[in-house]
């Protein structure tokens, strides 16, 4: 108990709640032919599971993407499609 802080505190850590991508029923798939690197998906993803690369291209981190579809909905170039997950 002595190593507990005085009150509940959380420190930023990647994936401390486990691999939340396991919940997904649909996965976002990026069509790079259409992507214009506007980074809107990167801004909107609530997780964040859209990874921004050095050249401002984007990719999805499927370990943590929960499949909410916000990125697909917001993408102005319609470059993201939600595809059903099959086990």
């Amino acid at each position, binding site marked *: 108990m002595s190593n507990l802080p*005085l*009150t509940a505190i959380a420190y930023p850590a990647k994936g401390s709640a486990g691999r939340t991508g396991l919940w997904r029923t649909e996965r976002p798939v990026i069509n790079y032919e259409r992507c214009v690197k506007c980074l809107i998906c990167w801004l909107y993803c609530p997780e964040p599971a859209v990874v921004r690369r050095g050249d401002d291209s984007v990719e999805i981190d499927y370990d943590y993407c929960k499949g909410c579809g916000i990125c697909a909905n917001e993408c102005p170039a319609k470059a993201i499609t939600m595809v059903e997950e099959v086990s």
Partner: protein
Amino acid sequence: MPRVVLSGNEAVAVGVKLSRVNVVAAYPITPQTTIVEKIADYVEQGELKARFINVESEHSAMAACIGAAAGGARCFTATSSQGLLYMGEMVYWAGGARLPIVMAVVNRALAPPWSIWCDHNDALSLRDAGWIQMWAESVQEVLDMMVLAYKVAENERVLLPVMVNLDGFLLSHAYEPVEVPTQETVDLFLPEKRPAPYWIDVVDPKSYGTIASPDTYMEFRFKLQAAMDEAARVIEEVDAEWSRMTGRSYGGLLELYKCEDAEVGLVVVGSWAGDAKEAIDRLREKGVRAGVIRLRVTRPFPSRSLASVAESMDAVAVVDRSLSPGLPSVLLSEVRNALYDNGKKPYVKGFIAGLGGRDVTPLDFEAAVESTLKAKEDGGSRVEWLGLKGGRDVC
């Protein structure tokens, strides 16, 4: 030390100024309003270098204090009655988050029926929120208590918020000559706030008040309880230190008046202790060896000190300005609880009095003590409503 005439509310504001508070967030409510009016003046005139945050409610006032306190600022707010109830959720938050905020509560009855006058049910409704609860008797004590409250709250062994209670109108709007400690004295007594282990810090980002699973929740609550136990000791130490610096001591958790040889004790909280003392003097003239036990602090509840004072008494009268419908009153239950485990315990009779600002005089206190001694002899009622019009036929 300069001697000036101040109202209870002005004394709170002076206490805030002397304590060099950094952030004040408050919403007006009678009879608290003149506290924050005065503080707003100080900030406007540059006499207090603080951020004064105008908020849209008491809930937001406490929320602003919580944020600022988590960022390391010394914070203050004040409220009364309905405002305190509205603030309630955030009051618990400050306690659980261990933030050393100080709040003045100018005690006022709860509605309905609507009332702006004094009783203690507002503050007592939040007695389990993890706040230290202190109660002043005089305007001088209000001023001193404000400074002492920060010193206790910020102590590393404590780290808990403190409620400084003063009776609505009876103290808040009563003017008394007061010795104002110098700024140098207060600066020596209350150094600049030190960072606590959990301060929000952009270099070391963290989020705060997050979920605790059933695995850890109880341990956090245990720590809160342990801090309250520690606070009881710290309050006594701080009282002694203040006494060395200013010559004024209030006795820490309890103030005892003529209790050394007393056979009967009168237990009270707040400003009417003055009337209770007068009643004791009159009783002593009649040959009744009586004394006053004034609880200055009700959280942490001074159970042990109370039991050890009361064990040499035959009877105790508890005059309570609160009602717990169906119980019947908060202070009475807590006093009885404190005495129960002690080998030698006095007969206890409770009095519900002064609700909604009903006047209570030294004659009423005298009657309460006499009625307690009589009830002990003839087995009369253990609870009485003082000054109830029409007696129990009111129903």
